């Protein structure tokens, strides 16, 4: 019985700090009670002034540089509280206690003094740092029967937790006989009373629901050590449990993309796809690669795709045009500034190669190399990223065959290139041979481009790539 009592008492103690908070919030209603309860708050969760300990080397003052916690946060022993600096030394101050931060004595850039209070921590009562007393209250002015203090002229002894339990169950304390010391009403008394009333066997002491938030943070396994797993956020306390939702604001580049893509989808898209046999081009590139390397340039397939597209645009300039906002005018762009979609850490960026119509395949390769290295270093300039008139997206380097690309305004067409696969195909003689096949998926603005135009452009582009020698005829 003795042990049982201690257990229930300690569980009731947890309730106290929580209970007090409830009442603090309802200050308006229970103003008188609140005054009384506030005094009890001090004694139930003891507030300890955590002083700034000696730094060493005779240092007496430091500058507070960063707080890792704020008022109201729970801390465990050894959690980092703040970072202070003194004469080229940065010091991490850690908590000596488990508890809740109640007050920060300094702001950022203030001078803090060794030996003076740094923060006030409300100690977790269960730690037994301070002995716990059941609260004795004088009768409140309000008429709340449930929490009424008087039985037969005596003051009723009951902790706020017990009172709350009584209130929740609509029990008048005056009707309960306390079995605790000095006729103190214990939780068991309330529960037994309830059991008798309903004839039910109540579930064992609802310790689970009483367990305060403080307890739960203790259970976080060595999270402070794992701090390094997380990408540092301004408050570097590990408060996230696994599986918790994380909401972040949409900022910067992402915000701009939201705007662009919303505008893009206002364009009526139509798609057109085809299959290209790159067997000859693959061979050609193998021959030309070492030549380019001698000149210090990496030659991929893209320069060929880009040049072929430009040759095609010469025949079908509507694909290199722009429609104004009111759809009143179409502007045929003179320059073929062909954009190449690049996947970077930030996301999708589209630098463009300027004036492809006057560039050789090698020129395009050089420019692509430059854009690629700038892109991966995060150093592309505004001129590299503006002025595009037509875009190719080589999604195939990551994977995929067919795609449905989204047109990037103010352009009117875009092509997505799938990966090159080795597939069996029939040749003119009806024989099966190994072919290097790539799929292309075009999207175009159906307001000014019709399917036939897109198909003819695609066929022309395809013919240049399937028979690279034919490009020689039309190269300018």
């Amino acid at each position, binding site marked *: 019985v003795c042990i049982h009592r201690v257990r229930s008492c300690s569980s009731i103690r947890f309730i106290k700090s929580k209970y007090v908070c409830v009442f603090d919030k309802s200050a308006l209603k229970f103003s008188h009670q609140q005054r009384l309860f506030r005094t009890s708050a001090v004694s139930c969760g003891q507030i300890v002034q955590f002083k700034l300990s000696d*730094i*060493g*080397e005779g240092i007496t003052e430091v500058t507070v*540089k*960063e707080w890792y916690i704020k008022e109201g946060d729970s801390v465990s022993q*050894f959690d980092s509280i703040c*970072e202070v*600096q*003194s*004469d*080229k*030394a*940065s*010091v*991490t101050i*850690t908590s000596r206690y488990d508890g809740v931060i109640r007050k920060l004595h300094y702001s*950022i*850039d203030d001078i803090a003094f060794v030996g003076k209070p740094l923060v006030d921590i409300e100690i977790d009562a269960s730690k037994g740092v301070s002995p716990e007393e059941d609260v004795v209250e004088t009768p409140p002015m309000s008429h709340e029967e449930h929490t009424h203090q008087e039985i037969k002229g005596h003051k009723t002894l009951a902790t706020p937790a017990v009172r709350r339990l009584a209130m929740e169950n609509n029990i008048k304390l005056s009707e309960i006989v306390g079995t605790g010391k000095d006729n103190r009403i214990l939780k068991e008394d309330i529960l037994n009373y309830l059991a008798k009333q309903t004839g039910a066997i109540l579930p064992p002491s609802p310790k689970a629901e009483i367990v305060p938030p403080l307890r739960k943070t203790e259970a976080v396994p060595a999270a402070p*050590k794992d701090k*390094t*797993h997380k*990408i*540092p*956020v*301004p408050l570097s306390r590990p408060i996230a449990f696994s599986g918790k939702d994380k909401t972040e*604001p949409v*900022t*910067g*580049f992402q*915000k*701009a*993309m939201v*705007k*662009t893509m919303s*505008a893009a989808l206002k364009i009526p898209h139509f798609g057109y796809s085809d299959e290209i046999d790159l067997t000859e081009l693959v061979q050609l590139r193998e021959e030309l690669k070492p030549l380019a390397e001698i000149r210090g340039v990496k030659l991929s397939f893209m320069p060929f795709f880009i040049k072929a597209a430009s040759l095609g645009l010469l025949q079908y300039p509507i694909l290199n045009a*722009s429609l*104004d*906002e009111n759809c009143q005018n179409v*502007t045929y762009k003179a320059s073929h500034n062909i954009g190449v979609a690049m996947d970077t850490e*930030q996301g999708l*960026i589209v630098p463009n190669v300027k004036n492809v119509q006057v560039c050789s395949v090698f020129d395009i390769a050089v420019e692509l190399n430059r854009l690629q290295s700038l892109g991966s*270093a*995060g*150093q*592309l*300039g*505004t*001129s590299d*990223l*503006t002025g595009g008139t037509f875009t190719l997206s080589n999604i195939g380097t990551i994977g995929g065959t067919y795609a449905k690309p989204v047109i*990037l*305004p*103010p352009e009117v067409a875009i092509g997505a290139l799938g990966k090159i696969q080795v597939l069996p195909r029939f040749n003119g003689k009806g024989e099966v041979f190994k072919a290097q096949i790539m799929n292309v998926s075009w999207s175009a603005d159906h307001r000014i481009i019709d399917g036939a135009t897109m198909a003819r452009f695609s066929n022309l582009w395809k013919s240049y790539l399937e028979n690279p020698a034919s490009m020689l005829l039309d190269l300018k």
Partner: protein
Amino acid sequence: MVLQSLKNCLWQSCVLRTPKACFWSTASGGLIIQSVSNDVYQNLAVEDWIHDHMDLEKQQILFLWRNSPSVVIGRHQNPWQECNLRLLRQKNIKLARRRSGGGTVYHDLGNINLTFFTTRKKYERMENLKLVVKALKALRPQLDVHVTDRYDILLDRQYKISGTAAKLGRTSAYHHCTLLCNADKFVLSSVLKSPYKGLKSNATPSVPALVKNLFEKDPSLTSEMLLDAIAKEYAGQHQIDHHITLINPADETLLPGISNKTKELQTWEWVYGKTPKFNISTCLNMAYKDSVLDAQVNMDVKHGRIEVCNIDLPEQWLPPELYSELVKSLTGSKFCPNETTTLVTTLLRVCPQDDELHSRWSLLCENMIRLM
């Protein structure tokens, strides 16, 4: 012999399944280790790892390391205030923020770094620096080197050859310092000069100093000789073998969790995001057509992100909706040229297609980006 002992210890640590390899817990009172890596992030991560995981009660540690060209700023500093970020990006010089306090330094292979790990109680910077001076004098008795009360080491009473910083934790502490042997002074002075104007901040400022390489005083000196001399002195004072153990900061078995520490040190949030709040108040002088346009810019940057942004432009120079779109997009965005470039160029796609407008937009944005 070094490789042998490493292998043995790694094996033992696997068998015992202890996070600390037995390699660490030798019986002696001290340990000298040297990094095989020249990557500043990896080396800083080793410092973090030792600080967080090692029990330094029985054994103190001296860690020797060198970095490929890098600029290292102190924990509470502002990189925009301290160095020429544009130049760093151009020259591919890394930027790192260390966890200790103090000022900004330039590292290259001609600079050596020494870290003295002790318990918090045994933290004593003066002792460490005196050890270094003693080692230098043992190597070259005629060198005029001494320690100042600002924890610098001066050559010929004039030139700074070493700077110091420290980090104190709950139970352990470390003091690290640099030593200029043969660093590129030209690059050093150009990268440590900030071109950014109008910055107001409470970040720790660096104190510029006249520097000199030991090599300039005595061309026979090399970094290796200096490292060896200091190790010898440390070994003598701690009564341990003059034996330097090589460690590989990429070795996850030896240093479990080290790759996460290395990654964290490279994140934008750490390097730039930890900058104390600052304000930029400056005037953009933009040459447009035949005149020069002045635009006053006022920005608050917190955690490396633009909190508040105000640009004073002549009325109607940019259509008001466009201006507010720009300001709205910049707010909350990283104070970073790359982020801003991609942001403004993407926004341009949904602007009216007007050449005049586009050139004004580009001009303004490029000037804004130059502030970053």
